[in-house]
């Protein structure tokens, strides 16, 4: 019996090649897309799962009430916090402090590297982050000053082998780091990438202030005892902090609140946190969106399946009739049809797995991840696979099974085919409408996301970064050398201007609270920037009041400050020039006078509003050379620049980057989301179009006789095409009316994540509907044209 079903299933497939192709290809593409998305989602959800106690690990977050900025969440904490937490709370078993050094220049003998992912870490890193050593001893490796543990990958890169690495000394600035261990390469799906671990006490040596309460400069992780309710623990933090941080009662409102974030939440649920180490931060909304798309794609493929099965039911009806006459009962037939769809689904799944394996490398390149399926380990995937098979097989097969098996043999064998379709056309139309709703929503979403990204990339940020190249100086920032290299660069006519600053956007990435030198203790939280006198003019940032920094004024270096409009607005100053700030560092009080106000510009991404910023003229804070170069000569100019660099800073690695590139990199998340989203949307559209093609083919096939008779009567096929198009237009319009509010709602929510966003215009929806209509019309015309050009005699013989 089973073999008979399989046989007839396969023969049915090969008889209606187009329909079968639509079914199998549609399902295959759909399932492939589904697999890819599921793999991606699984990868994202598994971030930081390699650590030993993911459910007991937490990251400390501060909720700060920052004057001038508002409330902000910061995953940076103070040095003494971790030890104090362990000391005061028995339920906190261990703590780990990590200070990110980021990218630093490392020198070994004559080799130089700009090493990424260098962190200072407490020795507890081995246990808490499950870092295993290939060489060295975890109990001692990070205990000494200037001891360092490197990854296997780095060991091979620097020393060609793991064994060679142990005991070697590498140089970072003027510190000599001794390699005391080699660790296994760390997994990529972790929020903190670690290629090099430097003992934490070394960072306290470089920055003695890390030992005192006051500056948030590192991440604190804690490990709780089993079964500890972290929310109850958090409630005790308020009093705990007051024990260590002195703050007069009248300023208690300024005190930050401390709370805990579960480590597994860090990757996907940290979008609201301002300062943090979070490598390739994910977005939980994107995970939801992609999961929904994955399911939609499968649903569309299933709808195609059902639609085509209904279409084919006319042909299958006779078979059903005959089988019933010969003694098959309804259950036999239900089994048969479900069996057939299970077979088709199985074939599609097998094809999809092959296709997925073929596509994975390119997919990985697009999303910049390393996804793979380990079929022997990934049980979620394997069980999901079987579930998918059964569910898709049952859902797709159920309608034809229950519908076709109900046919009365005398009706289908005697009465001809006419009667069979009456009841199903409504369902078929509903399914078509549903498919168009999905398509229109997806097209609409693509249009909106694309426009938002274009808007962001093209928005006037308030400064002109075209043809600006940045070269990181690291510690080569002595004023003499900077002067020297500036003058050397300017000798080349391709270099139009050179400036030094703390970042290519002018600010340094750190934030500080400064006090106005008045009687009311007014405070303001600002971004700190260090720029020379060339920076604002070169970037086209106008000084709207007062003056720019200048070499002519000897006091500028220590006593001047330039602020932005936002700062002026927050402080409510009518005449900012000459106003004074003070900051206390140790026992010294520094005072700075406002000499100028610059117009606001977007130094960070458009996701956030422009915050108050202040700029200093101190060369110690300047770490990057920015220069404007002539566009058409960029290649030779860059070569010139590199050679000058090596002359002046022999032994220092050279790096350069266009400002426009760095700026664009701020939106990598959005662009990646857009890429993934549009690829899968396109796929679901293709599957929808295939379904539509199948459906119109069927409808036209049914009307072949009508077309034939019309032709014999001398009529044109124009009319039948227009009636068909009218029918579909109506369905598309209904779908458009249903889709518009849904699509608008979701996109509007999504755009709200941006501080600067486009408004959704009515023409997006009109355009989406028009595109859908175009797809429908082209399909119909293509199919009808073929049919209309066939010989009418063949057409009328068709039964």
């Amino acid at each position, binding site marked *: 019996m089973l073999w*008979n079903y399989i046989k*007839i299933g396969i*023969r049915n497939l090969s*008889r209606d090649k187009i329909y079968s192709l639509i079914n199998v290809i549609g399902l295959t593409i759909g399932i492939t897309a589904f697999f890819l998305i599921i793999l991606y989602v699984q990868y994202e959800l598994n971030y930081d799962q390699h650590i030993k106690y993911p459910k007991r690990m937490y990251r400390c977050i501060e909720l700060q009430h920052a004057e001038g900025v508002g409330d902000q969440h910061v995953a940076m904490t103070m040095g003494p916090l971790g030890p104090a937490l362990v000391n005061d709370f028995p339920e906190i078993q261990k703590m780990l402090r990590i200070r990110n050094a980021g990218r630093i220049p490392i020198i070994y003998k004559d080799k130089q590297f700009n090493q990424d992912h260098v962190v200072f870490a407490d020795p507890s890193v081995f246990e808490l982050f499950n870092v295993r050593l290939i060489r060295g001893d975890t109990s001692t490796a990070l205990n000494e000053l200037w001891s360092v543990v490197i990854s296997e990958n780095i060991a091979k890169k620097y020393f060609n082998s793991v064994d060679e690495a142990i005991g070697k000394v590498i140089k970072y600035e003027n510190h000599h780091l001794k390699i005391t261990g080699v660790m296994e390469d760390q997994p990529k799906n972790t929020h903190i990438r670690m290629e090099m671990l430097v003992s934490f006490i070394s960072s306290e040596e470089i920055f003695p202030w890390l030992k005192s309460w006051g500056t948030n400069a590192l991440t604190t992780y804690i490990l709780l005892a089993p079964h500890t309710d972290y929310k109850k623990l958090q409630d005790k933090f308020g009093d705990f902090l007051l024990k260590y941080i002195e703050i007069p009662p009248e300023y208690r409102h300024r005190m930050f609140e401390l709370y805990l974030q579960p480590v597994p939440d860090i990757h996907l649920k940290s979008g609201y946190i301002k300062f943090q180490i979070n490598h390739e931060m994910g977005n939980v909304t994107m995970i939801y969106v992609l999961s929904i798309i994955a399911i939609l794609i499968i649903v569309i493929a299933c709808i195609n399946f059902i639609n085509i099965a209904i279409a084919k039911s006319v042909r299958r009806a*006779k078979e059903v009739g005959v089988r019933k006459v010969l003694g098959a009962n309804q259950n036999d037939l239900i089994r048969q049809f479900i069996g057939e769809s299970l077979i088709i689904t199985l074939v599609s799944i097998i094809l999809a797995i092959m296709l997925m394996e073929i596509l994975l490398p390119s997919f990985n390149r697009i999303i910049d991840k390393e996804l793979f399926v380990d079929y022997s380990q990934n049980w979620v995937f394997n069980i999901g696979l079987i579930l998918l098979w059964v569910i898709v097989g049952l859902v797709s097969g159920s309608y034809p099974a229950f519908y076709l098996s109900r046919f009365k*043999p*005398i009706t289908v064998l005697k009465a001809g085919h006419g009667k069979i379709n009456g009841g199903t056309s409504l369902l078929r139309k509903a399914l078509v409408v549903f498919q168009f709703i999905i398509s229109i929503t997806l097209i609409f979403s693509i249009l909106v996301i694309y426009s938002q990204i274009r808007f962001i990339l093209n928005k006037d940020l308030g400064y002109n970064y075209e043809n600006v190249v940045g070269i990181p100086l690291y510690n080569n920032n002595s004023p003499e050398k900077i002067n020297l290299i500036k003058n050397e660069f300017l000798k080349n006519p391709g270099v139009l201007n050179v400036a030094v600053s703390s970042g290519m956007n002018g600010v340094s990435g750190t934030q500080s609270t400064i006090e106005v030198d008045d009687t009311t203790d007014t405070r303001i939280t600002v971004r700190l920037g260090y720029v020379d006198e060339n920076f604002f003019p070169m970037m086209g940032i106008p000084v709207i009041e007062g003056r720019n920094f200048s070499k002519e004024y000897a006091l500028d270096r220590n006593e001047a400050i330039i602020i932005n409009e936002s700062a002026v607005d927050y402080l409510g100053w009518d005449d900012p020039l000459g106003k004074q700030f003070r900051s206390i560092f140790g026992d010294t009080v520094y005072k700075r006078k406002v000499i100028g106000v610059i117009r606001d510009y977007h130094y960070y991404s458009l996701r956030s509003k422009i915050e108050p910023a202040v700029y200093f003229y101190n060369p110690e804070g300047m770490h990057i050379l920015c220069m404007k170069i002539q566009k058409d000569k960029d290649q030779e100019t860059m070569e010139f620049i590199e050679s000058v660099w090596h002359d002046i800073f022999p032994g220092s690695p050279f790096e350069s980057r266009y400002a426009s590139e760095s700026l664009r990199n701020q939106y990598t998340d959005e662009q990646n989301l857009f890429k993934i989203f549009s690829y899968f949307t396109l796929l679901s559209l293709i599957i929808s179009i295939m379904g539509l093609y199948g459906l119109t083919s069927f409808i036209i096939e049914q009307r072949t006789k009508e077309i034939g008779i019309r032709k014999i009567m001398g009529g044109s096929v124009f009319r039948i095409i227009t009636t068909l198009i009218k029918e579909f237009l109506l369905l598309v319009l209904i779908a458009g009316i249903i889709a518009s509010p849904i699509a608008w709602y979701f996109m509007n929510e999504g755009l709200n994540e941006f501080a600067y966003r486009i408004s959704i215009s009515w023409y997006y929806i009109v355009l989406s509907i028009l595109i859908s209509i175009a797809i429908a019309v082209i399909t119909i015309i293509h199919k009808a044209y073929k049919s209309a050009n066939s010989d009418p005699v063949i057409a009328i013989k068709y039964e």
Partner: protein
Amino acid sequence: MIKTVNLTKIFRTDEVETTALNKVTFEVKKGEFVAIMGPSGCGKSTLLNILGLLDNPSNGDYYFSDHEVSKFNERHRAKLRKENIGFVFQNFNLIDELTVFENIELPLIYLGMSSGKRKMRVGEVMDQMQISHRKKHFPLQLSGGQQQRVAVARAIVAEPRLILADEPTGNLDSTHGEEVMTLIENLNQAGTTVIIVTHSQRDAEYAQRIVQLFDGQIITENIKKRFI
């Protein structure tokens, strides 16, 4: 073997009510060969469908082997059908996707016969119908006569007690028609009860008895000389 009492079938649409069969009472004995004749629309196909348990009467009783079956549900009827009745249709109604062998095999599959036995039985029937050489062909590769022979083979493969044939020669030329009628006659002579519906006087001649239907009623039940 078959007995109907006041069998009535009424078709209703929204506005029209058509009486296809009007109190039909008649009997077919085991081993008989009966032809049902009458003009188009007189109800002969409806009668055949009810006799074949493909349709239920609106009223009246239908005894099949002394069991009243008119109220049977579909599952019951399917069982009775596959064990007792073979069908031959005017348009053959072979399944295009199955080969000759597989078409003939189908009733045996639904009877749950083992594959080995099926092979043997289908082989026998194909020999009997002289279509063994066409075993692997698909219906559309055969002539009408050959197709109908496959259909007859399929009808008898399960050795039914009753064969119902609806215009079995309607789509065939006269030579092929005669061949098929001879086949049916031979089956009858071997003991199978046969009822055919036909327009053709010549086909009806093969039967022992001709029942005339008109407007849903039996007007004659003429018993032919040969039988006496």
